[in-house]
């Protein structure tokens, strides 16, 4: 009897380990950018092509940067959540239109509503690479000092917004 205890225990531990592994999402690669200054960019705006926008303009404010594209399926799912966030007015929301055609991006915002204060236009995805973007949509919370405090890979949901993003924004706003 005793000799079965150890193998059985090892087996149970292995099952538990694999079970936990199944619940993890391999797509959620921890970003090395958290706690680091937001990479610098200066990109033309989506609507007003002659104007540029840089993250430096946002120093002193807590803000949210959302990477989106008209070709991105989960962005469609996320869009109502962003519209709600924008309507609540709790935090300035900026968009980064990633590797899109300008007219497609504009048509998307026109058709579904524009939650962003403004969107910047990253045609070749260079700024996307600087931000470690690999699974659009992605969302960054950036603090008053311009440091990335949170990154979400994949669509925001009302739950994530309520449990993670909004409490963090509030906390950073007090700091």
């Amino acid at each position: 009897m005793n000799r079965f205890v150890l193998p059985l225990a090892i087996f149970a531990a292995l099952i538990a380990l694999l079970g936990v592994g199944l619940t993890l999402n391999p797509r959620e690669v921890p970003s090395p950018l958290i706690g680091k200054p937001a990479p610098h960019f200066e990109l033309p705006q989506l609507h007003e092509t002659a104007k540029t926008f840089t993250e430096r303009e946002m120093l002193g404010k807590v803000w949210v940067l959302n990477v989106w594209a008209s070709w991105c399926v989960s962005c469609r799912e996320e869009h109502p959540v962003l519209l709600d966030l924008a309507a609540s007015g709790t935090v300035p929301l900026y968009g980064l239109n990633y590797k899109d055609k300008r007219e497609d991006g504009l048509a998307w915002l026109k058709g579904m509503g524009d939650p962003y204060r403004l969107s910047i236009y990253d045609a070749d995805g260079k700024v996307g690479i600087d931000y470690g973007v690999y699974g659009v949509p992605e969302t960054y919370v950036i603090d008053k000092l311009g440091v990335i405090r949170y990154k979400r890979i994949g669509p925001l949901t009302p739950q994530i917004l309520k449990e993670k993003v909004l409490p963090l924004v509030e906390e950073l706003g007090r700091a």
Partner: protein
Amino acid sequence: MLRVLQLLLLAATASWALAREAAPAAADPALEQRVMTLASELRCLVCQNQTIADSNAPLAEDLRNQVREKMRGGASDSEIVDYMVARYGDFVLYRPPLKLTTALLWFGPLLLLAAGFGVLLRRILRRRPAHDPEMTVSERRRAAALLAGSETERR
């Protein structure tokens, strides 16, 4: 005659145009070789079990271009690797670096091997009988008697 000349001219310019289109990849085979060698060390974040050399995902293509551009700019391989790690983390490396957090990954198999040897050794040692198998005097006597046939098995 004029028509032939025109045709020739057209053919010549057409091939010239084609050659120009193919130029970027073929221009510097040594560079391309270097790009692909380094690219095969970097993981594609979208299709996670492929390197950016193998993958056709748009992001992999962008990252290859980025590697190529950096190499043209004179960056060393390790500078480019650092650049990628700064953006995507250690995960981008196909061969994980040796760190405290990855120690189990590196030495886990060795530990398992050692544990296996430990179990094996214990079993071998245990198999050796604990006491001397030699018979006592009374047993010896009884065996002799049995062999001689003067005593029958009692049980």
